[in-house]
Structure formats: structure tokens, C-alpha cells
């Protein structure tokens, strides 16, 4: 354990909602826990208890989704209806039965990352003939980043599920087993 980190200002008591809003503080807390500081764990558990606040990320994901669907479908109303329908089915399938709030969030993330990747690839392919070399490289870099985000989103959910037998997270005052 690094004593420097354990005595850092991040060790000061902060509320869970403050930690959710301030990612820098949360990261500092995580690093302390990672270094073995047991006193960081109660605060981390408090963060996970704040499910309604964490749920704001679902809103964020849905806003991004809506914005991409609008761009992808343009004036085509059928596509505008069909994509969210498919995404909903995809989310449900990924989240599985009785998902924990965290699993539900991770399923949202996988879906939105998948949609983002599809969108960037579609733009690239649509403009392939008209692009300069610089523009093509720019689009490829963006696709690569989206692809990395997508893979990392899948990995995060797989990780949570792998740890499932021994993981119990107390979210919103309910003891929830993360096993799907």
C-alpha cells in the first residue's frame, strides 16, 4: 500500500453522490482501494448504493442513441422506428434475465457502443469515394476508437459476470447478486 495515497486529500470523507459527480475523487478512492486501503471500501459501497444517480447514465446513453438513430434514418420513418426496436431487443438479450442495475447499465453501454460503431462505419463507407487520404485516415481512427470502446464494454460485462458467484453488491438498499 502506498502511504502517500492513503493519506491523500481524497481520503477525506465525501458523500457518495459527490463521488459519482466528481470522477476525479472516485478515481482517487478506487486507486486507494486498489492499493489495499480498506477504509476506502465503505465509500465505494456507498457509491454503488446510489443507484438512482447512477441511472442518469442510462439517460445519457438513450440520448446518444436517439441522436444517432435520427442521423442514421433521416426522413425514413420506418428505419427510425425499427432501429430503437432492434436496440431494445439487443439490450434485453445482453442484460439477460434479472440483471443487476450494474449489468443493466453495462448492457446499455454495449448497445450504444455497438450503434456508434455501426454509424461511424456507415459514414465511412458512404463517403469512401469522395474522401481525401487525410479524411479517410481520420475516419479510420474514429472507427478504431469506437471499436476499442465496444470491445471494452463487452469485456466489462463479462468481467462482472465472471466474478458473479462471489459478488454481491448492495444497490439501493437491496442485496443483489450480480449473477444473471
Amino acid at each position: 500500500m502506498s502511504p502517500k495515497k492513503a493519506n491523500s486529500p481524497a481520503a477525506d470523507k465525501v458523500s457518495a453522490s459527490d463521488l459519482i459527480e466528481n470522477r476525479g475523487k472516485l478515481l482517487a478512492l478506487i486507486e486507494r482501494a486498489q492499493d489495499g486501503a480498506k477504509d476506502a471500501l465503505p465509500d465505494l459501497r456507498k457509491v454503488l448504493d446510489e443507484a438512482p444517480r447512477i441511472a442518469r447514465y442510462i439517460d445519457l446513453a438513450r440520448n446518444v442513441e436517439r441522436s444517432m438513430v435520427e442521423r442514421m434514418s433521416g426522413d425514413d420513418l420506418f428505419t427510425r422506428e425499427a432501429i430503437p426496436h432492434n436496440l431494445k431487443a439487443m439490450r434485453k438479450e445482453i442484460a439477460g434475465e434479472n440483471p443487476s442495475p450494474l449489468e443493466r447499465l453495462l448492457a446499455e453501454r454495449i448497445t450504444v457502443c455497438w450503434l456508434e460503431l455501426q454509424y461511424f462505419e456507415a459514414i465511412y463507407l458512404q463517403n469512401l469515394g469522395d474522401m481525401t487520404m487525410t479524411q479517410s485516415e481520420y475516419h479510420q481512427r474514429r472507427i478504431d476508437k469506437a471499436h476499442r470502446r465496444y470491445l471494452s464494454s463487452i469485456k466489462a460485462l463479462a468481467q462482472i459476470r465472471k466474478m458473479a458467484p462471489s459478488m454481491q453488491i448492495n444497490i439501493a438498499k437491496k442485496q443483489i447478486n450480480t449473477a444473471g
Partner: protein
Amino acid sequence: MPWESRERGGIYYTRTRRENGRVVREYVGSGLLGHLAFLEDERSRHEREERAARWKEEQADLDALEAPVDELSEALDLLVRAALLASGYHQHRTGEWRLRREPKKSQ
């Protein structure tokens, strides 16, 4: 300036370009010929500027779309780490998550 006046009188339209790192000035002509070349160059320049502006706008548009996905991903990575740590796991230096072993209490 693309228009150049001569000592003998009259103005010439010129084009400047770079060739093997050297600046080369080409004399296009005076009168109607010079004027037509000037109009053609103006049109090309305008088109280039419009294309560049469109490209910049497209980049900003895609950046705006990517930023919230990035934010969501970062936030959820932190939550996953928080959940794993709170459940007694630690990240080994190889990146793998392992259950933290409690040291045996000596009696």
C-alpha cells in the same frame, strides 16, 4: 498579389505555386485572358474553402456525438472497478482481477 503591374504599363495576372520547395511564379496574361484566369482561380479557391468548412463542421458534429459515449464508457469503467474492489477483488499487475486474500490471523 496575383495582379502585377509592368514598367511598360498594363497589368498581368500571375499564379504562384510551389515546385520542389521553390516558389515559382507563372505569368498568365493581361486583359481578358488574365481576367478569366483570375475568375477561375477565385472559383476554385471558394470551392476549396467551402469544402474545408464542411469538413470542419462534419468533424465537430462527430466529436459531439462521440463525447457522451466516451463519458459513459469512462464512468462505467470506474463503476465496474468500484464494484469489483468493493466486492473484495483487486487488480493484479497483469491486469487480471483476483480475490484479495485475507492474511491469516496469528493466534
